[in-house]
C-alpha cells in the first residue's frame, strides 16, 4: 500500500463512517446523541474490520466518495448485527461500477453530486457529509419527494432513485462486484446465494434456510447462511 493509498484509505474510513466519525473529530458534536444506533455501528465497525478505501479511486474523488458513503449509509444504515451500506462496502461497488459497467452514468453522478452539495449548502450552509444524520435524512427525503430545489439533470427524484438502486445492488450483488462484503447483505436478509439444488425437504421447510455454504461466483462464504 502506498502512502497515498494509506491516507486515502484513512480518509475514506472516516468518510464512510460519516457524521458519526466526523463528530468524533469535533465537527458536529450533536450527531452522536441524535443517532445512537448510528454511533454504535460506527464504533463497532470502523477501522481494521472494514478497511474500505484501498481499492477506491476507480472513479470518485475523495469528496464525492465521502458524500456517497454518507448518503448510502443513510439509505441502508449499519447497526449491531444489522450490516448496512458501510459494512457491505456499497461505496466500493458504486465506484467500480461507474468506472466500468455504468461508465455512461459518470456525468449523471457528477452533476447529481454537485446539485446535492449546492442544495445542502443553500439550505443548511454545510455540505452533505457535515450534516447530522437527521439533516441528512431530511435532504434524502426532499430528493425522494422531488421537493429539493436546484436540480435539473438529474432531477432530485432520479438521483435519489438511482442511488437507492445502486445501494441495493451494492448490498446484494455478488461480492465479486465489490460490495456485499463477506456476504453481509445476504446474511442480513437470509439469502443463501446461488444454491445448485434445493431438495424436496428444503422446499417444504417453514424455518430459515441455514445450510452451509452460501455460494457466490468465486467464493464460498464461511458460516451459516441464516442471519448472523
Amino acid at each position, binding site marked *: 500500500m502506498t502512502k497515498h493509498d494509506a491516507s486515502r484509505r484513512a480518509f475514506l474510513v472516516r468518510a464512510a463512517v460519516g457524521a458519526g466519525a466526523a463528530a468524533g473529530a469535533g465537527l458536529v458534536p450533536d450527531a452522536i446523541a441524535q443517532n445512537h444506533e448510528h454511533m454504535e455501528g460506527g464504533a463497532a465497525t470502523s477501522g481494521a474490520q472494514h478497511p474500505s478505501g484501498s481499492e477506491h479511486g476507480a472513479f470518485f474523488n475523495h469528496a464525492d466518495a465521502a458524500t456517497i458513503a454518507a448518503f448510502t449509509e443513510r439509505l441502508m*444504515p449499519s447497526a449491531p448485527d444489522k450490516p448496512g451500506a458501510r459494512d457491505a462496502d456499497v461505496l466500493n461497488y458504486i465506484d467500480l461500477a461507474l468506472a466500468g459497467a455504468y461508465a455512461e452514468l459518470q456525468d449523471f453522478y457528477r452533476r447529481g453530486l454537485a446539485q446535492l452539495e449546492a442544495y445542502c449548502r443553500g439550505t443548511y450552509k454545510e455540505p452533505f457529509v457535515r450534516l447530522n444524520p437527521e439533516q441528512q435524512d431530511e435532504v434524502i427525503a426532499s430528493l425522494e419527494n422531488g421537493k429539493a430545489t436546484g436540480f435539473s439533470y438529474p432531477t432530485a427524484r432520479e438521483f435519489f432513485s438511482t442511488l437507492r438502486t445502486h445501494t441495493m445492488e451494492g448490498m446484494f*450483488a455478488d461480492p465479486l462486484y465489490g460490495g456485499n462484503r463477506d456476504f453481509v447483505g445476504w446474511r442480513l*436478509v437470509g*439469502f*443463501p446465494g446461488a444454491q445448485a*439444488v434445493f431438495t424436496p425437504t428444503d422446499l417444504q*421447510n*417453514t424455518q430459515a*434456510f441455514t445450510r452451509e455454504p452460501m455460494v457466490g461466483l468465486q467464493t464460498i462464504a464461511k458460516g451459516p447462511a441464516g442471519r448472523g
Partner: protein
Amino acid sequence: MATEKTDVVIVGVGAVGGILAAELGKAGMKVVGLERGPRLTTADFNPHDELRYFQRQDLRPNWKRQPVTWRPNTGVRAHPMNVLNYGNQAGGGTVHYGTLSWRMHEDDFRARSQTIEKYGASAIPQDSSLADWPVAYADLEPFYDQAEYELGVSGKAGNLQGKKIDGGNVFEAPRKREYPLPALLMDQSGVLFAEGARKLGYHPFSSPRAIISQPYHDRASCTYCGFCQSFGCHVGAKSSILVTKLPEADATGNFKLLTGATCYHVNTDNSGRATGVSYYGPDGSDNTIEAELVILAPFIYDNTRLLLLSKTDKFPNGLANSSGQLGKHVMAHIMAKVFAAYDDRYVNIYMGPSAQKHTIDDFNADNFDHGGLGFIRGAQISIGPADLEAGPIGTAMSMDPPPGTPKWGAAYRDFFAKYFARYGAINAQTENLAYADQTIDLDPDVRDQWGMPAPRVTYDWRRPNERARVEFLMQKMEGIAHAMGATKVWRAALSPGAPGAHHEGGTRMGNDPKTSVVNRYGQTWDIPNLFVIGSSTFPSMSGFNPTLTIQALAYMSADAIVKRYKNRPGPLV
C-alpha cells in the same frame, strides 16, 4: 457485401423461429436463420448472477443500443423503456423466460362473441377493438399437444377430453392427453396459496411450466435452484428453444444460423413479391439474402418496424399494410400485486422455479360471471416472488414496503431483513383489451445503434374496463392473502400506464384482409410469400402467458407450409 440464396429466411430465431427452422428443415427446405444476438450454451449459464442477468438484463436487449420508446398518449414525447423483457440471442425469450406454458381457453379465441352472447354488445367498451381469432381452440389443440410433448412441459391435466380432474386446472379447455411430465414439486408458497384458495372455494393447481420435472429426451431434470426468470438454466432443464428445437434444426443439415445479424429491410419487387431480406453483419457489413419465403419472427416491435421501414412505391404505407391495421391493437399484461407476509414462518420464496408458481384460474377469461361487475375478461392469479425472480436485488426493487414503512433507512432495512424470506406476492396477470389507438410506429426522435428509428409504443393500460378489473382482482387477492394466514397483507403500487409483460399485437390476424394484416397462418394478405408469426398476430391476449400459444401457432404454420405451401406456393386461405 454478401448475397446468398436460400429457400427460406427466418428473421429472429426464438420461440417461433426455432420451431420453423427445425420443421421446415426436416421437410427438406434450406433455411437460413438471422439472429441479432449470440448463440449461447447451457455451460454459459453457470454460475447464476442476479446482478448480471436480472438487474443488468444480460440476456435481453440493451435498451440504450436497441431502444424501444413508450409514451402514454400522442400528446407527449416518448422515452426509451429501461427494461425490455424479450430475448436477444438464439432461442429468444425462451432462454430467460419464466416458462409458463398455457393453452388458452376456448372462449379466449372468441372473446368478442362470447361477451356479446352472454352480456350483450354494450358490455364491450366502445373504443375497444376486441376481436375473435380466426382460429378455434380445437384447431390448435393438436399443435398445443405437439409443443408440450416435443419441448417438454410439466403439469397436471384438469380437463381430459371433457372429464374434469381435481388438482389440475378444471377451467382448462379439453386436452386429448395428460401432460408429458408430472407437475413440478410444490414449495412453501404453493402450499400456502393452495390452502388459502381452497378455503375460499377456488381451484388451485401447479402452474404448467416448460421445465422438465423428470429426465426427458436426454435432458436432466430441474434442481429447483430458483434461477429461472431472467436466467438461462444451468442444467438445461428449462425447455428453451436452445436445448430443444435448435439441435433438431442442426440435425436436418438444412439449417444455417447467422448470429450477430440484424435484419433492417424486407426486400420486395415490382410484382409485389418478397425477394428476401437485408441485414447488417456483426462486422458492420451490409448483406442480402434472396429467399423464396420470408418469415418474420422477432419480438413484436420489430415486426411492425421492419414492415414500416420496408415501404416501397408499391407499398407506400409499409409492407402488408393495405388494411391500415399495421401497428395497431397493441396489448400488454400488467401485474396487479398483493403481498402476503408472515411473522410466524418462513416461505423461502427463492426456492424452486421462480415465476407464477401456483395458480387459480377462477377469475380468468369468462370463468366467472361478469354480470354487473362493470368490466369484461379476467386474469390468471398466481403466487410467486415480487418480480418473478426472487433474489435480494429484484426483491429490493419490486417489493414495496407496506404503507407507513419508508423505502430506505433503518425501518426499511429492518422490514427487508425480516420479510425477504417470509413473504409471497400474489399476482393478477390481467387480460387487457385491444384498443386501436394502442400502437407501434416509428419514433421520429430516437434511433438505435444502426441509425434506424426506434419502435415507439403508444399505450396506457388505465382504461375504465381495466381499472375496474384491477380493483376487483385486488380485493380477491387480498381475500386469498388473508385466507393464507398472512400476518401482513398490502397492495403493491400499480404501474403508471406503461405496458407490462408479454406485449402483443401490431400485425393482427383475422379472416378479413380489410381488417387484419395476416391470416390464421401468419401469412400476410398482401404478400403471400411473407409470413409474420408470433404474438404480434394475437387479436386478443387472454390472461395467460403467450409462449405456448405462440409455439402452437408456429407448429400450425409449419404444418401448413410443409403440407401445402411448399408444393403450391400461394395464399393458404
